[in-house]
């Protein structure tokens, strides 16, 4: 199974899902979880997702309290968090679809 890294979009580290290799062979790709497999990659991605949400919350709080140093950072952080959630949701949906398809394949 070839993995397609999403790093090319350039949205930031939280959008890079480390490519997953099916076997133990390391391919030396950026951020590769190597032998970690799907679970580890998923965990890492979720952690990054949580970070984006936390940052967005902090920035919103700063804005409400008059402590935001500039509006660009706030806007971008909030939007980034929103996109990260949307991406995660799409990935989840696809994963669930794939799961169902696999189970339908039973002989």
């Amino acid at each position, binding site marked *: 199974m070839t993995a397609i890294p999403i790093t090319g979009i350039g949205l930031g580290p939280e959008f890079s899902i480390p490519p997953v290799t099916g076997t133990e062979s390391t391919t030396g790709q950026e951020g590769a979880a190597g032998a970690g497999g799907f679970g580890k990659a998923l965990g890492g991605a979720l952690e990054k997702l949580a970070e984006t949400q936390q940052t967005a919350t*902090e*920035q919103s*709080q700063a*804005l409400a309290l*008059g402590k935001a140093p500039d*509006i660009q950072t706030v*806007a971008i952080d*909030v939007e980034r*968090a*929103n996109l990260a959630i949307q991406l995660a949701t799409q990935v989840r949906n696809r994963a669930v679809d794939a799961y169902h398809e696999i189970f339908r394949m039973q002989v």
Partner: protein
Amino acid sequence: MGRRLRRETIVGMFDSITLLEKAMVGAGRRHDALSANVANANTPGYRRVDVDFHGALNAALDSSDRDKALANVEFTAEQDGSGAVREDGNGVDIDREMASLTENNLEFQAIAGVLRQQFRTLETVIGNR
């Protein structure tokens, strides 16, 4: 990835929404006060008023029972005693009021925009998007 605030941050997105909502109310009240200043820019004896909504919110978050303080936060228009006063007793500098109006408007829109985005995030999670 973003500056960390020294103050302990509010946990969760629903609390953030309440804070943003109150901030919008505060900015709205500030607009009312600034409008009153502008309407009375030439009324003899009038002194300007303002609403420090950031101050009120900060105070609410500093209190011991944050949730309650935030839920009950009040934004009061206070008279601003400083500043020069003209012959007729009026202390309104119309240029400053107009600048403050613009600033406040933009701040209101920023807060509303962020609030809207947080709602959208929640909608995505819930599955409506």
